[in-house]
C-alpha cells in the first residue's frame, strides 16, 4: 500500500493486460483479436439496442490533453456510458450492471464505486450477493484501496462480520503482509469485538514465519486491546516469548523491536534479569539488534541513575555499532553517542546546578 496505492498496480498491469481491442468492423476493415473474443460475444454499449436511448458522454479532456491514456475501445465505450448515467443520475439495474464492467476495467475508479454504492441502496440490491461479488474482486485485486473499503461498507450495512476473519485469513495465506488485509482485519475485530481467537491466529502465523512483522504488530494490537501489558505475568510471558524466538532466529529484527516496544514505556532496565540474559545471548546470538537493545538498556539505566561505568559501556557499544557492526547507521550511532555523552557525561554534570539548586559533586559516582 503506497501513497497513491498504485505503484504495485502499475507494475503488474503491463503483465495482466487482458482487455485488448475487440473485433471492429469499420468500413469493411476488421481488426481481429481472437484471443480476447473469439466468438465475438462482446458487444459495445453503443451497439446495444437496450441502451439506444442514452447518449454516451465522451471524456472532456479539453482541446490539448496531457497525460493522455491510450484507452482501449472497450474502455472508452463503457466509460462513455458510465458518464452518461452519472450525468442523468440514473438509478437502474442496467446502471448497476455497467458499474461492474467499469470496475473491471479500472478497479481504482473510486467515482464508480461510489455510484455503485448509491445504486446498491437505491435499488435495494441483495447485499449477500454483493458480498460474493466483492469477495471475488478482492481475490483478483487484493492491493486496491477501493475494494476493501467497499467490502467494509457492505459488512457495515449487513451488520454481519461472520465471514470476515476467514476471508481475510485466505487473502493473507496468499500474501501474509497485505496491508489492506490487516487493516480490514483490525477494523472488523475492533468493531465487532472478535478478539477471542486472534492471539491463536497470531501464534499460528508466527510459527509459519517468525519474521513476519505484520504479525508481530497484530500481536501487539491484540494484547494491548485485551489483557494489556501492565500485569507482570503477561509482560513476563511476552518477554520470554521474544527471547525464545530470538534464540531460534537471532537476526530477526521484528522480535527485538517487539521486545523493546513492550518495555520502553515501563523502562527497559526495569525487567529483572533481562540485561543479564541479553549479555549472555551476546556471546552466542549476537546481532546489531542485540547491541542496539543493549544501548537502550544502558540509556534507560542512565536516566534513573547516572553512573560513569554505565555511560562508558553505552558509548562503547555505540562506537562498536558505528564502526563495525552496523556501519550503515554510522551517522545515527555517532549522533546517539554524542547525545549520551552530552546528557550524561562529565561536562553535563560540571558547572550546571542540579534541579534542587545545589552543585553536583566534582566527579561522578563510582559503582559500589
Amino acid at each position, binding site marked *: 500500500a503506497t501513497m497513491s496505492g498504485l505503484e504495485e498496480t502499475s507494475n503488474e498491469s503491463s503483465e495482466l493486460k487482458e482487455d485488448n481491442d475487440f473485433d471492429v468492423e469499420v468500413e469493411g476493415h476488421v481488426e481481429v483479436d481472437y484471443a480476447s473474443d473469439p466468438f465475438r460475444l462482446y458487444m459495445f454499449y453503443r451497439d446495444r439496442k437496450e441502451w439506444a436511448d442514452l447518449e454516451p458522454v465522451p471524456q472532456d479532456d479539453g482541446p490539448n490533453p496531457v497525460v493522455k491514456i491510450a484507452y482501449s475501445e472497450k474502455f472508452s465505450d463503457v466509460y462513455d456510458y458510465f*458518464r452518461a448515467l452519472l450525468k442523468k*443520475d440514473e438509478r437502474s439495474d442496467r446502471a448497476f450492471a455497467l458499474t461492474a464492467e467499469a470496475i473491471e476495467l479500472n478497479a481504482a475508479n473510486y467515482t464508480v464505486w461510489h455510484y455503485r454504492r448509491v445504486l446498491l*441502496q437505491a435499488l435495494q440490491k441483495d447485499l449477500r450477493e454483493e458480498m460474493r461479488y466483492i469477495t471475488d474482486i478482492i481475490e483478483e485485486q487484493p492491493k486496491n484501496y477501493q475494494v476493501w473499503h467497499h467490502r467494509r461498507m457492505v459488512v457495515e450495512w449487513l451488520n454481519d462480520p461472520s465471514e470476515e476473519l476467514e476471508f481475510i485469513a485466505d487473502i493473507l495465506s496468499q500474501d501474509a503482509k497485505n496491508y489492506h488485509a490487516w487493516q480490514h482485519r483490525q477494523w472488523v475485530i475492533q468493531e465487532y469485538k472478535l478478539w477471542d481467537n486472534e492471539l491463536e491466529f497470531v501464534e499460528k502465523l508466527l510459527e509459519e514465519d517468525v519474521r513476519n512483522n505484520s504479525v508481530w504488530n497484530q500481536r501487539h494490537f491484540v494484547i494491548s486491546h485485551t489483557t494489556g501489558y501492565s500485569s507482570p505475568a503477561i509482560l513476563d510471558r511476552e518477554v520470554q516469548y521474544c527471547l525464545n524466538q530470538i534464540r531460534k532466529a537471532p537476526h530477526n*529484527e521484528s522480535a527485538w523491536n517487539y521486545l523493546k516496544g513492550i518495555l520502553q514505556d515501563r523502562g527497559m532496565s526495569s525487567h529483572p534479569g533481562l540485561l543479564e540474559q541479553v549479555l549472555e545471548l551476546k556471546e552466542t546470538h549476537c546481532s546489531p539488534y542485540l547491541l542496539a537493545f543493549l544501548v537502550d538498556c544502558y540509556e534507560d539505566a542512565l536516566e534513573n541513575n547516572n553512573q560513569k561505568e554505565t555511560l562508558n559501556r553505552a558509548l562503547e557499544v555505540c562506537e562498536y555499532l558505528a564502526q563495525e557492526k552496523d556501519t550503515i547507521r554510522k551517522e545515527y550511532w555517532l549522533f546517539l553517542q554524542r547525545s549520551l555523552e552530552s546528557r550524561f557525561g562529565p561536562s553535563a554534570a560540571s558547572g550546571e546546578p542540579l534541579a534542587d539548586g545545589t552543585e553536583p559533586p566534582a566527579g561522578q559516582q563510582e559503582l559500589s
Partner: protein
Amino acid sequence: DRKAFVVYPQMCDCLDASRPWLCYWILHSLELLEEPIPAAVASDVCQFLARCQSPTGGFAGGPGQHAHLAPTYAAVNALCIIGTEEAYNVIDREKLLDFLWSVKQPDGSFVMHVGGEVDVRSAYCAASVASLTNILTPKLFEDTPSWILRCQNWEGGLGGVPGLEAHGGYTFCGTAALVILGKEHMLDLKALLRWVVSRQMRFEGGFQGRCNKLVDGCYSFWQAGLLPLLHRAFFKEGESQLSRQRWMFEQQALQEYILLCCQNPAGGLLDKPGKSRDFYHTCYCLSGLSIAQHFGNVDLHHELILGKEENRLAPTHPVYNICPEKVAQALQHFHQLPVPEADQRHGASSADGPSAPAASSGSAEHQS
C-alpha cells in the same frame, strides 16, 4: 522524456483515476532534472488540471470524476511547480476549503473522498494543499494532530490508521503533516528516528517500507525524506549534537542503490532490478536521490554528489516534495490573498443514501 506528457504507452487504464498524479510525478521529475517546461506544455497542464477540478471543490482523478484528496494534493503540487499566474489561478480556493471541510471527520481525521476511506495520507494531503494555498485555519485541523499521534506505534514509526504496522509512506505523511501544523514535537521523535534509520538496508543501501520487507526505490523518498524533517524537529527542540554536514542516514549508499540498481537503461527509474519502470518510481527515486545529495537549507548547504557532476539534481523540499523555490513562490503568492470564509456545511449530516444525487460529491455515506 518530456514527450511522456502528451501520450505515453505505459500509461495504462488503471491510472485513469490518477491523472493529476501523472502530471505531478512527471513535472517534479523534470524539475529535479532541471529540465525546463515549455510554456505551452505548462499552459496545457493548467487547463487540463482545471478540468479535473470538481465544481464542488478539490481535484479529481480525471475530468468528470469526484474530488479526492490524493489527486488534489498532486494537482496543487503540479500547479505550484508550474508556478505561473495561470497555474495559481486554476485553484478555486473557496471551493477547495469547502471540499476539505466536507471530508473532515469529528475525530480529527479526514476521509480521502466523500464516502471514502480514512488513513493518515489524507491529513498530509489536506495540510499540504491548505498551507500552500493559504486556506489553513486552526479549526480545520482541530484534533488532527492528536489523531496522527495515535498512528505512532510500538515500532516508533506510523501506521496508516491507529493500530497498524509502521510503514514508510504513512510515516512520511503523518510526520510531514505534523510539521506543517507545527506539532511534530508531539511525536516520540527519538523512537521515530530509531525506526526510520533502521529501515535502511545494510546490503542494498536503499530503504525498505516496513521491517523485514524488501527494499524499494520509492522509499528513497518516503523514508530518507524523514531525516531532514527529523533533523529540523530536533534542531527546534534545542538538540545540540546534530551533524552540520550530514543527514542521519548513509547518503552515499542510498545514491549507489538508486544509480546502480534503480535505473532503466532506456530512461526512467524503478523499484528494484527486474521491475519495470513507471512515473511514480521515477519521481520518488529522483526525489530520494536529491535528498541524499543535499544537506541543509538555504543558509547551510552541503552537497554530496556520487559520481559525475551531471548526477546532481535540484534540491527538493522535504515537506512538500517540490523544489524549495516553488514552495516559497507559492506561499508568497497565496499569502497575499485573504483566507476564505468557510461554508461549514460539512460532515455526515445532510443528504444521505438513496435520495442523494450520485453525481455530486456531497452525499456523505461514510459514517464518522
